[in-house]
């Protein structure tokens, strides 16, 4: 990692070669984030490093929390004052934060969460949540640093708009790739004032406020009650589904549709473009939000008469594929063509995140052939085939 090479502050509009982690941190600050707390963990560490360096310069605070539990608690406190605040980790660290995520959602606090995941195995954690109770988080999955810069700013807007946490799903590649970037503050529609936030000013006035996940209120003020609160959150969920975002390509005459999200989707798109050039009728659908998932768009595409099969490419043992099946809903056969893919440390990018390997799998799907084994793990594929016999 080269911190010194990435400290340049460029004039507005000028693009600078910048590590993804720094770009995300700068985007957060551009969006008005003034509080960050985190605990180091690869590949999230550099996001924390850049926040620690850049936030104080911007008049904000970044705390090196003693654990992920403290990190999310501190963000909770900062959010309660009306500040824009964020935390993050790698999937494992987010596992520790799940109890707070559930309750922060019930407290309707606009938390932004970064997951610089070790692959795509945190799909269920991000879209279903590992916490208790009824809640959903909007999850943005940028395909590259440039989109990440937009998504971070959008995340802060959406979090405030819905008073609901928004998660940015990144990975090793997003955190560590250097791209030529200019951080342009984006403009969004105006949001209502945060009159629910606490600043102490109403203490002793008889109209003091409470930021609480429980359905309680101050004596004399209307309380929702626990059930009422749960009903209210349940009502909000279908409204948040309007935030669905996706991208599709080459679907008009495609026989095969591949679904992929995040960094791997960019590889998939490149592979499909090459396969198209070679005359194969293959298209793609990329969910930009993985919650809400573009079920409607996928159903429409998969239901076209030209579509014969749908594949899910993901760097996990098969999580995204469940949403693909829900979306396709029997309109075409769905095949999981992804695989577990990290490096030997478990932190980084594995051998499946490779255009050649991805092309081979997509082509095998397209031609109704058996999937090639994961490079380097051929013996597992053999064992699986034996087991299936």
């Amino acid at each position: 990692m080269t911190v010194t090479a990435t400290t340049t502050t460029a004039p507005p509009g000028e693009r600078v070669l910048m590590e993804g982690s720094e770009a995300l941190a700068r985007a957060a600050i551009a969006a008005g984030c003034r509080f960050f707390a985190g605990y180091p963990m690869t590949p999230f560490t550099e996001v924390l490093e850049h926040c620690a360096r850049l936030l104080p310069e911007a008049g904000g605070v970044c705390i090196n929390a003693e654990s992920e539990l403290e990190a999310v608690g501190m963000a909770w406190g900062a959010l309660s004052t009306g500040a824009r605040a964020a935390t993050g980790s790698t999937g494992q660290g987010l596992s520790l934060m799940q109890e707070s995520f559930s309750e922060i959602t019930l407290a309707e606090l606009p938390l932004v969460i970064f997951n610089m995941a070790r692959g795509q195995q945190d799909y269920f954690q991000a879209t279903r949540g590992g916490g208790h109770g009824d809640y959903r988080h909007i999850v943005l999955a940028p395909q590259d640093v440039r989109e990440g810069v937009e998504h971070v700013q959008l995340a802060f807007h959406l979090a405030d708009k819905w008073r609901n946490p928004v998660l940015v799903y990144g990975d090793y590649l997003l955190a560590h790739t250097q791209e030529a970037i200019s951080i342009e503050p984006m403009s969004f529609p105006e949001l209502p004032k945060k009159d629910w936030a606490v600043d102490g000013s109403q203490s002793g006035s008889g109209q003091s406020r409470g930021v609480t996940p429980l359905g309680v209120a101050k004596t004399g003020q209307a309380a929702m009650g626990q059930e009422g609160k749960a009903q209210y959150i349940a009502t909000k969920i279908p409204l948040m589904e309007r935030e669905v975002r996706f991208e599709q390509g080459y679907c008009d005459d495609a026989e095969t549709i591949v679904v992929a999200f995040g960094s791997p989707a960019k590889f998939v798109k490149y592979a499909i473009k090459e396969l198209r050039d070679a005359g194969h009728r293959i298209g793609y659908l990329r969910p930009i939000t993985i919650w809400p998932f573009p079920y409607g768009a996928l159903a429409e595409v998969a239901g076209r008469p030209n579509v014969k099969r749908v594949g899910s490419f993901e760097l996990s043992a098969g999580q995204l594929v469940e949403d693909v099946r829900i979306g396709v809903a029997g309109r075409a056969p769905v095949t999981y063509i992804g695989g577990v893919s990290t490096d030997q440390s478990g932190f980084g990018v594995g051998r499946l995140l490779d255009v050649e390997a991805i092309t081979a799998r997509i082509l095998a799907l397209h031609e109704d052939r058996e999937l090639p084994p994961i490079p380097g793990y051929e013996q597992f594929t053999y064992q699986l085939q034996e087991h299936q016999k």
Partner: protein
Amino acid sequence: MTIIDTSSAPTVPARKVESLKPDLLLTQEHHMCPGCGEPLAVRQFLECIEELDVAARTIAVAGIGCYTSFAGTMDVDLVQALHGRAPSVATGVKRMLPDSLVFTLQGDGDMVNEGLQEVLHTAARGEKVTCILLNNGVFGETGGHMTATSVIGQRTKNTLDGRDAEYHGYPILIGDLIAQLQGASYVARGSVHNAGSVARTRKMFKRAFESQLRGEGFTFVEVLTMCPTGWFVPTADGPDYMQETLGEVHIMGELKVDGRVRTTDELHAENVAKQREIDEQLARGGIEN
């Protein structure tokens, strides 16, 4: 309808009717059991905030326990935290609003069991917040189960024959632990089992808040509170039981003042002197403030 006759001086002299409810409580009613010590403690710190005239910049962070019902009745801007996590939430609040008075309200189950690392790290970081511990040595809300501060021999719902050190381990003296941390500027352990201890505890709250407002560091006030329901003793026996069990282990007094940590022996000697003073005052007719 009675019409007040103003043609001559009233026959009954005017009389001031005093409300004993602290201004920072929205209602006089509370949801605690008879004999509970928590309302006494809550009253003390609320009145200190009024006296310091800082109500309009005070923010509370509540943990989860019986006292959580005060979240709705305290007329203080408040953030409800998860069980054990209030010190981190308070950190976030204070860092965003450095001019405010921020305190947490937690019990021993919340702070010393579930969230021990939170309060220790917050103290070590020297966060300028005040953590208030209402320590009754049991999980009162669940019905009287052992906590990390239950004393040896204490009978709880899951130590029916008394807490046995061999089997259940030893209690944590959280105030003593926090006093050792450099980031803590003021640490005290009070109690509400008699009028004298209530008066002492009130002073502790005031000193802690003043230290926070001067920006000296982390401040901590532990208050031993009666829980006759959770202790399975008659309501009226609560104060004596408290003094004889918890009070003998969690020694009352100021554990750290102006950066100086005080030993249990010092505190004990001080307590003996204080008791003598109180006894003398009582003999003269009442406690002086």
